[in-house]
């Protein structure tokens, strides 16, 4: 199997965690190159440490954020110009030359990955779409009416290349794109070696000054969406008591509004959420969120059954997702089939109060 050489692309901490996990499990016997991108700026500093782990043959850095900005929503002429200059673009964006691969693993259908698909279109190199949280379960990214790039001759070539989708919980998939779903093994929290690697890669330090109730903020403000998430935070804080409640701000939101409003003290840690889940004893911790993927990660990735309160039924405001209805169905399916004993979806603010009190609130 060592003759196989694969490429993995990771845009986020979540994807990087899965990339490391895949390399240690389903790609254990493959030689693998890893590309981390600037979509999540902090990934750049992980490159040397990733290299030091010896897991990957090479670790490349790619500046793909500008590519996404330029091409993700672009019209035909701009797209044609981009796809006709792939080699040139790659030389500017990548920290090293690409090799020949027998498979490519990616998590987002961004312009960079589509260009990769064009680059390897005529070669025996299937693409595997690996999970990026619940969007991988609910969104048909390649549907033609979603974006011009999906209708562009080159942009849609990736459709022919994707062989399957790798998901932690394939039975929850409901994208409707007919791509076959395959299971990714769950990450074992007791896997000390993995923990050691990831802690090293992300230079993880133990969390101090946490709280019993952690509210995962989402990027609604960054998207300019009016909503009631602050009211929900206030309700939670009142119910559980200020000292036991903390808001983990979303990195994309320009300001820490919850902190400015006195709803939370400063979140004491900038370590990736997944690392936090992997390292800390969370038996007495409750995660609260509107519908952040982070709250589902513990179940999807680690198979944990931690106290989770999803507030999407109480959320008022436009939702980011066009596939709102599918997202709702997914969340419902998740709740019905996957959620476990400690997963709560309050339907009224009164029920929320009762749940928080039951989980140890005042």
């Amino acid at each position: 199997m060592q003759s196989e050489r694969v490429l993995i692309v990771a845009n986020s901490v979540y994807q990087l965690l899965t990339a490391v996990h895949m390399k240690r499990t389903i790609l254990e016997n493959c030689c693998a190159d890893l590309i981390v991108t600037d979509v999540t700026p902090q990934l750049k500093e992980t490159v040397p440490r990733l290299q030091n782990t010896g897991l990957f043959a090479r670790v490349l850095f790619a500046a793909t954020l500008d590519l996404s900005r330029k091409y993700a929503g672009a019209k035909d002429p701009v797209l044609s110009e981009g796809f006709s200059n792939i080699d040139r673009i790659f030389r500017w964006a990548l920290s090293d030359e690409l090799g020949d691969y027998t498979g490519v693993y990616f998590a987002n259908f961004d312009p960079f990955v589509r260009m990769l698909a064009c680059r390897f279109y005529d070669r025996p190199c299937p693409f595997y779409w690996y999970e990026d949280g619940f969007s991988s379960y609910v969104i048909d990214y390649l549907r033609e009416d979603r974006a011009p790039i999906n209708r562009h001759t080159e942009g849609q070539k990736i459709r022919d290349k994707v062989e399957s989708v790798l998901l932690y919980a394939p039975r929850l998939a409901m994208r409707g794109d007919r791509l076959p779903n395959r299971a990714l093994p769950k990450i074992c929290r007791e896997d000390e070696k993995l923990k050691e690697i990831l802690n090293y890669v992300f230079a993880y330090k133990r969390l101090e000054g946490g709280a019993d109730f952690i509210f995962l903020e989402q990027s609604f403000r960054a998207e300019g969406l009016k909503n009631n998430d602050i009211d929900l935070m206030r309700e939670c804080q009142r119910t559980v008591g200020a000292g036991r409640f903390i808001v983990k701000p979303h990195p994309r939101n320009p300001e820490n509004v919850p902190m400015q409003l006195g709803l939370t003290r400063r979140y004491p840690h900038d370590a990736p959420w997944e690392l936090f889940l992997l390292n800390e004893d969370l038996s007495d911790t409750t995660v609260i969120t509107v519908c952040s993927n982070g709250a589902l990660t513990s179940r999807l990735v680690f198979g944990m059954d931690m106290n989770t309160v999803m507030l999407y039924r109480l959320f008022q405001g436009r939702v980011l997702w066009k596939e709102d209805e599918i997202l709702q169905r997914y969340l419902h399916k998740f709740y019905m089939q996957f959620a476990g004993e400690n997963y709560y979806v309050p339907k009224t603010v009164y029920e929320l109060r009762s749940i928080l009190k039951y989980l140890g609130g005042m």
Partner: protein
Amino acid sequence: MYKSNNDRVEKIKVSVIIPVYQVENYLERAVDSVLAQTLEEKEIILVDDGSEDASPQICDRYAQEHPELIHVIHKPNEGLGMARNTGLDAARGEYVAFLDSDDTVEPEMYAAMYEKAIAEDDDIVMCDVRILYVEENRSSVVSSYTREEVDLSDYIANGNNITYSVNKIYRRSLWEENRYEKMLFEDIALIPALITRTPRIGYVRKAFYNYYRRANTISTSAVGGMVDILQAFRSFMETSDPKYREEVVYCIAKQLYWNMTQSRVLFQADFIEFLKEYKGYFLLNSYLAKDRTVQRLLDFLDKEVIPERFICVHFGRPIPEGYLEELREDFPGAQLIDADEHSYPTEQLPENVQKALSEGHTTYAEEYVALRILFEQGGIVLAPEYRANLNLKRLRLGRIFFGFEDDEALTTGCYGALQGHYVIQALLDTYGEDTIFNKAFLPLQDRIRDFLILHFQLKANGRKQLLKKEVQIYLPSVLAYDMQDGENCCRRADIPVPEGFAAVSERVLKMWSDRVLENWNLYKQEKSTKPSSRGNASTPTPAAAAAGVSRQEMDRRIREVVENYENSTSWRITRPLRALGRLFKK
């Protein structure tokens, strides 16, 4: 037989029976009106029904003064009907008559009616009735029939005063097999049916009987025992001569209609149940088919009413003192389901309810059982800590009702529903779901509120709401606290307070005072608005618009508040002062 002044024993033509109970201020007037009768051959039987005022002494004085005419019987209190029966046992006259001790009769009454009876060999002779409205200082005459010759069928169907005992004289032999029942409406139960069985009836078209009608008498005030009227109607229906069934049913229909829509609206639910009991009779009645007014009664047949069945669930504790007594007083005909921990075998309860019981969450189990009985049988859940009053009868006209306990919470002290109601079914179903309500054994009031928010858009604001034309929600003053606004149907009674005081939760008190203030401000706003700007305003005020209230809704609420104030006693009393103030201003 009686002794006249010259000791000659003569035949007694009419025995006048006067039941006496706590009527010291009226009794002399009544007795004097009989003594003044032109009919000499009479006797007066005063039946003192255990009076505790000066009435017994007044009776005795009359007997002393008129030993040849007046006979007094003292007996323990048993009610009007029993007192009349006692009088009947003692009566010796050829005919008997009844006089209520607060009414009077005209001097010619018994002579004229006796003459008529003898002339026509009548068993019963009746006259007209003059009603004197005491507080209003006016009177009116109610004719018993349109012609002197009585056509019995027509009289039963279209006559008046048929249920009265007092505007008639009766051949004494009629009473050998008839007696009054012990109930509030003994007249209705007996007299009209007796008439159907008595072919020879005479009529003197004169208003001989003076009926003094006052407020706060048994016939004008609402007490729980009034449901007796239905038993009386039942007796009338069942004991009448079957050949007059059509007329009897129509006669009852008219009385029912009057009672349901005018005089005893509070008991409407009870009347509807009666109507349904004899549905076939009413639907097929030929008189009703022609009477467009009274046939509106038939519309009530489609209306469902919550049964007068109280469900009291008390696990491991007795029903508190006073609960049953107060219930019996206002709801004497109600069924009580008294369910303790042995009423439902534990194994028949859902798993989580069993678990709740084993872990000591007794209230959780109690509330489940109450809900289940409510679903199976319909009725009203009345927790041991709560006391209902007569007003609760009104709520039976809904299909399902709940009330706020404060501005957010609903009370489970008192709520009701029809048998098998789907909302109760759905609530029961939630006991099998994996929810916080079952995990944390949350109180039923939380479950109901959240259910209604989700499925019926309940607004948790403490205000009255009708949800999807099905679920009625009442103010805290209706089912939790008596705020003395005349609306209360049920109140908490588990907090001991001195006589004349009431315990009210802080939240309710605040909510109440906020509402009073809000109403007052609305009122002031309306009073200060010029009429010209009031009429053509089609857009809501900025404040109202911000609150999501339409102009029409605002107008309606303002009108309501203004009417409340202007109809209030204090507003009326101070009207002259305000007029003077305006005069001085000018």
